[in-house]
């Protein structure tokens, strides 16, 4: 039967289950990154907060310099510096409450240190004595994540689990501009939005994924614009403006904590150092660009503001510098000690209970080490098991 045979006037029917969706406007980021320092809005900022940010920035800068120096001395296998990105690192480390969780990538040791982690523990992965140098559950800092963007779904799952348990926990997950291209970024943000999980995603857009500039990474108006595709708000912030990053993250965390769901924050910043100490940045970018960004350095920006408000006293400068130097000296000293390693630990954490196969392999290694006199308690120069033909 066709409608020809149906009597009555012609009227177009609306698709029944189609509900016009929400207005996307509130989800879209502003056209320009939010800035506070040096703008009239800065007047409302708490001086105590500004001074805390300053102390941390100075310390963070020093930390980056010290860690980089440790690579030259062979004390770190590799160091991906966050020099230039300290405003993001510091804000991320400061905004969380005790029970909240931080999900850092390999570049975010500083954020973990600001959150309270011992720098030596934070650097364990990069020194090479073990993968994760701290107890993530104790510090609520997830393992530094090397496979890009894979930590994002972890943050979503953890935040969701906490909410199901009725706990007041927000997860803050860090990712780079390059990492936003990974499928895991997409899946994590989508799960977070559908589940309205209390999680905040902070993209540190530092302009490069190793050598690949943002223009080869995305054609989007901004990375924050990706938020609308998940139905969550996107926020754009000057990533070198510590006060602005702190402000935007605080807002987003409040929203998440109160059941408002996830937020995607893009912080526009710049990696002043090479990707890692092993990288040669001159292959893919010019000095002029780097110099231009140096003028927009996060420490400089904040010190200008403090100066303008008469807060950057000699005492403040000295106190910040001294604290930074103490941290660096302590770090240097402790990193210069060889870590005590037990090769047998290779078999200790593979499973809760060692399999028979692993027990046999452990026994083999123990025998080898014993024979070589490399195990504590091994007979030095004792009888070596000779090979027999």
């Amino acid at each position, binding site marked *: 039967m066709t409608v020809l045979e149906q009597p009555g006037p012609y009227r177009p029917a609306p698709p029944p289950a189609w509900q016009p969706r929400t207005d996307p406007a509130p989800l879209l980021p502003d056209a320009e990154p939010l800035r506070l320092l040096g703008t009239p809005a800065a007047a409302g900022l708490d001086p105590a907060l500004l001074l805390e940010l300053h102390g941390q920035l100075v310390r963070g800068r020093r930390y980056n310099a010290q860690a980089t120096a440790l690579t030259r001395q062979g004390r770190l296998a590799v160091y991906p510096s966050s020099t230039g990105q300290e405003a993001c690192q510091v804000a991320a480390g400061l905004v969380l409450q005790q029970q909240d969780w931080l999900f850092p990538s390999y570049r975010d040791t500083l954020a973990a240190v600001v959150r309270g982690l011992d720098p030596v523990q934070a650097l364990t992965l990069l020194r090479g004595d*073990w*993968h*994760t140098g701290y*107890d*993530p*559950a*104790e510090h609520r800092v*997830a*393992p530094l994540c090397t*496979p890009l963007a*894979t930590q*994002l*779904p*972890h*943050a*979503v*799952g*953890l*935040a*969701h*689990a*906490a909410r*199901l*348990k009725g706990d007041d926990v927000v*997860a803050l997950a860090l990712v780079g501009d390059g990492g936003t291209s990974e*499928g*895991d970024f*997409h*899946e*994590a943000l*989508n*799960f977070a939005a*559908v589940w309205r999980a209390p999680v905040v995603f902070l993209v540190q857009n530092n302009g490069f994924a190793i050598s690949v500039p943002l223009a080869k990474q995305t054609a989007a108006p901004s990375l924050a614009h990706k938020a609308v595709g998940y139905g969550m708000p996107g926020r754009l912030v000057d990533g070198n403006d510590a006060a602005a990053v702190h402000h935007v993250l605080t807002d987003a965390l409040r929203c998440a904590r109160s059941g408002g769901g996830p937020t995607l924050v893009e912080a526009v910043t710049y990696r002043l150092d090479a990707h890692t100490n092993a990288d040669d940045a001159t292959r893919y970018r010019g000095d002029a660009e780097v110099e231009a960004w140096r003028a927009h350095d996060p420490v400089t920006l904040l010190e200008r503001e403090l100066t303008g408000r008469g807060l950057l006293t000699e005492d403040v400068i000295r106190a910040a510098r001294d604290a930074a130097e103490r941290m660096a000296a302590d770090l240097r000293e402790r990193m210069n000690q060889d870590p005590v390693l037990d090769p047998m*630990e290779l078999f*200790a*954490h*593979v*499973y*809760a209970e060692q*399999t*028979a*196969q692993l027990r046999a392999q452990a026994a083999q290694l123990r025998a080898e080490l014993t024979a070589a006199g490399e195990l504590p308690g091994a007979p030095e120069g004792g009888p070596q098991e000779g090979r027999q033909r």
Partner: protein
Amino acid sequence: MTTAPAGPGLKPATMAEALRRALRDAMADDPAVHVLGEDVGTLGGVFRITDGLAKEFGEDRCVDTPLAEAGIMGTAVGMAMYGLRPVVEMQFDAFAYPAFEQLVSHVSRMRNRTRGALPMPLTVRVPYGGGIGGVEHHSDSSEAYYAATPGLHVVTPATVADAYGLLRAAIASDDPVVFLEPKRLYWSKAAWDPERPDEVPGIGRAVVRRRGTSATLITYGPALPVCMEAAEAAVDEGWDLEVVDLRSLVPFDEETVCASVRRTGRAVVVHEAPGFGGPGGEVAARVTERCFHHLEAPVLRVTGFDIPYPPPMLEKHHLPGVDRVLDAVARLQWESDWTERTPGTAAATDDESGAR
């Protein structure tokens, strides 16, 4: 095995029912157990293994996720980090591949990466294997990938009772378990008392399903019924075959397998996965290392061919069947015991000994 008579208190149950029951009981016993996957909630899963769970435990405990396997696995990692015991369902074998990075780079290593601080009590249920007339990407035997990944346990039931017992053990395990469910056994039936489910001795124990003296068939999952049938058929040929069901690829129960092979002196490994690089190679190599001087013949393998899984109308040619198993048994050099062999004559038979 598929139609065992019901004893007192025993009712015939399918493997699917036993699996569903295991999930239900695990969720009832422990509020930390959460089920995640595609269509696991309202629909109860495309194989109905999660049927009724969302209704009984709520949609937060049995979650219809967005359609993204890496997202499922990755969020489950986060949930496990917070102390939950996620049970994720990958809808079909080949649709677990998008989650491979999360599985290999995180699930399998999290405990080790964190010096034991973050265990991963995660169960990954994967319906696997063929024989159900599925279109491409619905019939892969992917166990080789998981078995080669340190930090994972890899388990697969072949009986109704094991389906229940092993799934309970997997969920109870503090380590991640890839739980491979043989699709074509979902509707196999056996007498089983859901109120007093058999004790299954945890993960990592193989079991002798049939005692025999002539040779050992070493197998698991969907190939077990084939081997049992082959063993019955072999009686007519004068062979008394022992059948070992591995149940767990990792940890591997060397004791049980080697004890059997030492008794019989001959062995054939049977599985549906492609032979090259498949679990059979590991089993054969390991058994040979341990039992070399008990072997009357090389350990042979009967496996799927080294080809992508065939279309439904051709799959019967790919799947190891009774005849192929018996053909392999026939090649186990029955003509002589090794003590009688001389190097010269033995060498002459070499190239036939392993036609595959």
